[in-house]
């Protein structure tokens, strides 16, 4: 092979068949192949829909009070004689007889007045997106009578509708907290990992302090700190602030570790060799490469906050009524006798479980899709 021959040679490169794929397209292609990842993604989308259209999905006005601790109304497709009918339910009402043990009026289905069920029925009035007035609901009794599919709580409010409404506050808290800890954690982690030195050493000791802090007593102490008379949104902001203040440290650790590895990789050195500034290296080379890990960390952090919110709610540190959240609903379940007699008020737990599973599955799927190289 002579040099002059070589001059003319241009090496063939593979055709750009699925060539010009961006990184995102690659990740999506791999995510599609992960069964759990896709299941998580679909569930997350459903949860988001549920949250955005909470009014539409709620069969009953969540503030409407009725019979306290009414059991869930079952859907039957047969009538009393056993013949097949249009799906119906029977309203739960207080009868005239008394319970021989508690001497409370007996609560039971009213077989005399069956309620036919249907989709897109008329119900209580609301404004879609806070703008469009409508009274259509996804599912309910055709004549607009309130139906409590998951029973009612101690004030006789519909549990299912409160779960739908409560998902807003719960997920809003989760997303806000995760947003804050991501911004703070990523910034601190990248700066600490990239510049290293004394700043890094002290920053990491501080992170360790935050991580080592006994969180539960702190949460409980803080609950007593806020005046009872504080307005609800102040309380909400406080909950978010406390959760973020203790959550960013973990994120900053992960980002710092990744940044440390990236800062020593050849393309960062190559960027230094062409004279790039630190700012350019951080934003062009480190940030985009850290981002994929951050996205995964975010999807895995959301369920943690949802869990934390419901757990703290159970302990009494949750948003205040009239706001609704899953944590707040679980506050009612803290008495053993209540759970024993009215187990349906535990149903927010199922939604917490689904949310945690959905985000975790999505996070795991994303991690595998993001990191094969």
């Amino acid at each position, binding site marked *: 092979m002579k040099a002059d021959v*070589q001059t003319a040679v241009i090496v063939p490169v593979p055709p750009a068949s699925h060539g*010009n794929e961006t990184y995102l397209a690659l990740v999506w292609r791999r995510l599609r192949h992960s069964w759990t990842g896709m299941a998580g993604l679909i569930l997350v989308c459903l949860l988001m829909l549920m949250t955005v259209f909470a009014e539409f999905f709620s069969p009953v006005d969540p503030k409407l009070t009725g019979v306290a601790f009414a059991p869930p109304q079952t859907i039957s497709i047969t009538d009393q004689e056993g013949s097949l009918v249009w799906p119906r339910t029977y309203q739960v009402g207080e009868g005239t007889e008394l319970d021989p043990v508690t001497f409370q009026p007996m609560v039971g289905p009213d077989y005399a007045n069956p309620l036919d069920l249907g989709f897109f029925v008329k119900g209580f009035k609301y404004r879609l997106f806070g703008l469009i007035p409508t009274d259509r609901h996804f599912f309910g009794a055709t004549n607009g009578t309130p139906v409590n599919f998951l029973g009612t709580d101690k004030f006789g409010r519909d549990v299912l509708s409160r779960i739908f409404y409560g998902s807003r506050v719960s997920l809003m808290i989760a997303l806000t907290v995760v947003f804050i800890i991501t911004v703070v954690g990523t910034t601190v982690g990248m700066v600490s990992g990239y510049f290293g030195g004394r700043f890094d050493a002290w920053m990491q000791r501080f992170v360790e302090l935050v991580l080592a802090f006994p969180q539960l007593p702190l949460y409980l102490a803080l609950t007593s700190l806020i005046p009872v008379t504080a307005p609800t949104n102040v309380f909400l902001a406080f909950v978010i602030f406390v959760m973020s203040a203790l959550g960013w440290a973990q994120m900053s650790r992960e980002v710092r570790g990744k940044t440390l590895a990236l800062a020593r990789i*050849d393309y960062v050195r190559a960027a230094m*060799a062409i004279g790039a500034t630190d700012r350019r290296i951080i934003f*062009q080379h480190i940030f985009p490469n850290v981002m994929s890990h951050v996205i995964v960390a975010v999807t895995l952090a959301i369920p943690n906050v949802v869990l934390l919110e419901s757990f703290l709610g159970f302990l009494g540190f949750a948003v205040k009524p009239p706001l609704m959240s899953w944590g707040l609903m679980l506050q009612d379940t803290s008495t053993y006798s209540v759970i024993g007699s009215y187990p349906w008020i535990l149903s927010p737990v199922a939604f917490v479980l689904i949310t945690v599973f959905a985000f975790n599955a999505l996070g795991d799927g994303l991690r595998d899709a993001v990191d094969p190289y």
Partner: protein
Amino acid sequence: MALVDISTLAPEQRHDHAAAVGSPIIDARHVAVKFKVESGMVDAVKDVSFQLYRGETIAVVGESGSGKSVTARTVMGLLTKRATVSDRSSIAYDGKNVLKFSDRQRRALRGNRISMIFQEPMSSLNPVYTIGAQIIEAIRVHQKMSRSQAMERTLELLRQVQIPDPEARINQYPHQLSGGQRQRIMIAMALANSPDVLIADEPTTALDVTVQAQILNLIRDLQKTLGMAVILITHDLTVVRQFSDYVYVMQNGEVKEHNTTTTLFQNPQHPYTRHLLNSEPKGMANPMPVDSASILEGRNVRVSFMLKAGGFFKPQLKELVAVDSLSIKLHRHETLGLVGESGSGKTTFGQALVKLLRADGGEILFDGQSIENKTRDEMRPLRSRMQVVFQDPFSSLNPRMSVGQIIEEGLIVNKLGATRNERLERVREALNSAGLPNNILSRFPHEFSGGQRQRIAIARAVALEPEFILLDEPTSALDLSVQAQIIELLRKLQDEKGLSYLFISHDLKVVRALCHRVVVMQHGKIVEEGPVEDVLTHPKTAYTERLVRAAFEVAA
């Protein structure tokens, strides 16, 4: 030369089967392996047949991606779950088709009758067990033996693989041994049950050149004394020529040609075989102008690292001198080779000279300017004049940036080219001079092969029109034939643009093909320097001689 029908070069049967004694110990026919990937199925191995007789060594040669390792793993039964072996395939061990064996039967065969050693000895050994424990386990899985008997056998094996002081070594952990010793331990483990067949998959690629010869000699000696058959998988033709009896040349999952080693090397028939044999780096650097000025000069450059020593209560710092007061002078249009084994400090020295690392002492002059005390900001105006190409093209290109962005970045940073179009024009020129088409600006690094990526990295350096490029083992991670192309490219660029190179390498073959002068380093010191031909033909020190012998005649 008479035309040969290339389809007849690789029949199922070996060319020398008439002369063979007995039946082959391994007789593989029509082995085909597919892998499930995201976009469907990939044929890793299409149709491979080979025979291995007792007491001989066959070599499987090919470039990365040719399917040689997959073939070996199929024989071992070590394929991943994503792989499927076609129904037509058969691999007979001693007349019995192992592909029809149950998992249990295969396990009994693996590590017992057929053993394998891998490329990277550090990751093949478990770091939390002593080497003794690991060898003993390998023995007792397959043989009923008491612990003390197994211990005896382990010591015997360690002696066989020539580990000094085996009684002490047996209780050491893998990290306490050198790379060569670890590979010896791997061999000892593979030999633990006196296998009939040893598969060595690139056994020396991860090792230093001088260690390579020792390991290969050891394998050959053991093969003779134990009467094993060896399958040697490699990309290194020098190794093949010296250590194998019969050669299979693979490309794209198929055997292209096979023959006895002597015949194949004397009379290669298939174009691919010829291409492989031709891709040994050759030629020499074109002569440089006589009285060229100095571009980069290091005087008594010293780099040291502080290691933590002592415990928590008595913290101490221990100084490790990586580069010990070295002086070097590089002229314009010259290529200076910097040679040494891993750990000799050559990369550290190179990076200190371009100020990617801080030197502790000495002077560095770039084009007459002293740069050793310049800060990163002060260095910036000089950056476009000195560039770096790194060893591994897979980590030196940011996977999130397109080829265009990667090359353009240097232009933006150094404010070269007034408009974006002007910059893109320069990017295209740079791609062309690196031998790449200029329509790949919007594509991403992962779409390219190692050689192409290294060209992109070279284009990134060249786009800035530097006067000097630090080449840090730019060819070590590449296949042989690609390596030859890159050397051609570097030589061409030097002649066209009058570049000066500082070429860091451990491979003297490449150094001979590219450099005018060479500096040999060992333990942070320069042991020898001079014009390339002088140093390679008349090495003055034993160390250089060892390096030269390792490069040009492995079996030294």
